[in-house]
């Protein structure tokens, strides 16, 4: 196989837990105005994991959908990376559990990754490199989180649960979206962190906007487009990391992308911020509706801080290789819970 082979996405799967809480109900519990908060964040409800779910179970469900829906022989997956900021163990990988649960082992390169919300796309880059170098046939990269938030912290309105798994390969009949290029922009910016023994992450408030999210997302997007001599008009869709429903719309505006190109991959208003899952669940939603030749720009963001950008071109294969578990259906299949039940769901077994 030559280094010129088309490397790209050959399959993907998403998992969004069915439980939802309305932002209004969280606000009410703390005597705040839910309407105001929802409008200012552009987030209306968020997905809540059950007490027996964690980043690992979410990763497994997403991985199973990817393997089953796209008819991939799991035994041919040569590398598996799980990115999360809520790995259930501090020491002991999530990825090896996922590997056995989908029967991908034991011939498997495997590791857990962490880079706040961009650990999933970091895994995609590693798999892309390994496939391109012809070291493996398929690589699987997963971003999954059950995001934790301090009760009555601003994060409580958005921190949600969910994840996506992407299988990278190079079989010409299987690639549904070719990865034309990837680029990362990284600086040491302490906007959001969690020390080893802390239950909840801390953040630098407003500092998380301009010098953190926007600087990295905009820089990564601009540089990868420049590098490939492409402009916003050349893309059909753009997907950004989405800590709330507002930031991606502003990033799109700054980069001169029309609203209709960013909205299909903007899910935070309906499911909240799924952290490591956020940008790639958005990408899956876009792939769900993509047509051959569509151009997609994906830009993740991870606090601490960095952005991974990808240029993807959808192939003809998408006509007969598609997901049977659409993101839209998962968003619409929901059960509402109130704040008391929400606390119970998240705390019964500490994730």
């Amino acid at each position, binding site marked *: 196989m030559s280094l010129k082979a088309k490397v790209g996405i050959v399959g993907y799967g998403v998992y969004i*837990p069915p439980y939802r809480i309305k932002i209004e109900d969280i606000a009410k519990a703390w005597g705040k105005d839910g309407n105001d908060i929802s409008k200012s964040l552009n987030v209306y409800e968020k997905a809540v994991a059950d007490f027996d779910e964690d980043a690992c179970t979410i990763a497994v469900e997403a991985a199973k959908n990817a393997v089953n829906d796209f008819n991939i022989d799991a035994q041919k997956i040569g590398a598996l990376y799980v990115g999360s900021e809520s790995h259930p163990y501090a020491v002991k990988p999530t990825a090896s559990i996922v590997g056995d649960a989908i029967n991908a082992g034991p011939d498997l390169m495997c590791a857990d990754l962490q880079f706040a919300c961009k650990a999933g796309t970091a895994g995609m880059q590693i798999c892309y490199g390994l496939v391109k170098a012809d070291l493996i046939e398929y690589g699987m990269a997963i971003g999954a989180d059950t995001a934790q938030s301090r009760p009555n912290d601003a994060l409580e309105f958005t921190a949600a649960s969910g994840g996506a798994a992407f299988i990278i390969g190079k079989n010409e009949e299987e690639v549904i979206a070719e990865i034309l290029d990837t680029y990362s922009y990284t600086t040491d910016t302490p906007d959001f962190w969690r020390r080893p023994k802390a239950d909840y992450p801390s953040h630098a408030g407003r500092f998380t906007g301009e010098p953190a999210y926007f600087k990295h997302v905009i820089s990564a997007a601009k540089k990868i487009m420049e590098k490939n001599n492409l402009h916003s008009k050349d893309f059909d869709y753009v997907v950004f990391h989405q800590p709330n429903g507002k930031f991606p719309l502003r990033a799109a505006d700054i980069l001169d992308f029309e609203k209709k190109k960013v909205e299909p991959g903007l899910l935070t208003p309906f499911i909240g911020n799924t952290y490591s899952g956020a940008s790639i669940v958005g990408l899956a939603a876009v792939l769900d509706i993509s047509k051959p030749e569509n151009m997609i720009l994906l830009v993740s963001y991870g606090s601490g801080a960095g952005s991974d950008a990808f240029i993807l071109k959808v192939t003809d294969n998408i006509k007969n290789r598609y997901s049977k578990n659409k993101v839209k259906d998962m968003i619409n299949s929901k059960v509402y819970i109130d704040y008391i039940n929400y606390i119970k769901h998240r705390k019964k077994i500490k994730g």
Partner: protein
Amino acid sequence: MSNYALPLIWRKFPERYNLLGNKCTNCGRSYFPSRKICPNCRRKGHLIEEVMPKEGKIISFTKVFSAPEGFEEEVPYFLAIIELINGVRLLAQIVDNEDHKVLIGAKVKMVFRKISEKDEESPIAYGYKFKIVE
């Protein structure tokens, strides 16, 4: 800290993660969990590993309000006898349900969940539960 139950749990991973059971090539019956000998054929039987299908239906169920040790904080929850599409029956917890959807005959599929976690220092046991599919 050592944990004496670990090797026992670890050996059950293929069963708990993937519903790995076995099948008798002599009479064609499937078993979950695995049997050491085929109760139907006895010495004539020959058992090979078989992964069970992940779909089935509820044969009977009960809502548990008073749980055994380790599951107290999960009540109330549904426990059901499920018949997989190959006819094999097993007992499993039903999750993600709205109560009125848990019915005899309801279609279910396997999901991967946390089964138990003794305390913050113990390993987490993962395995199968089932959810209703519509």
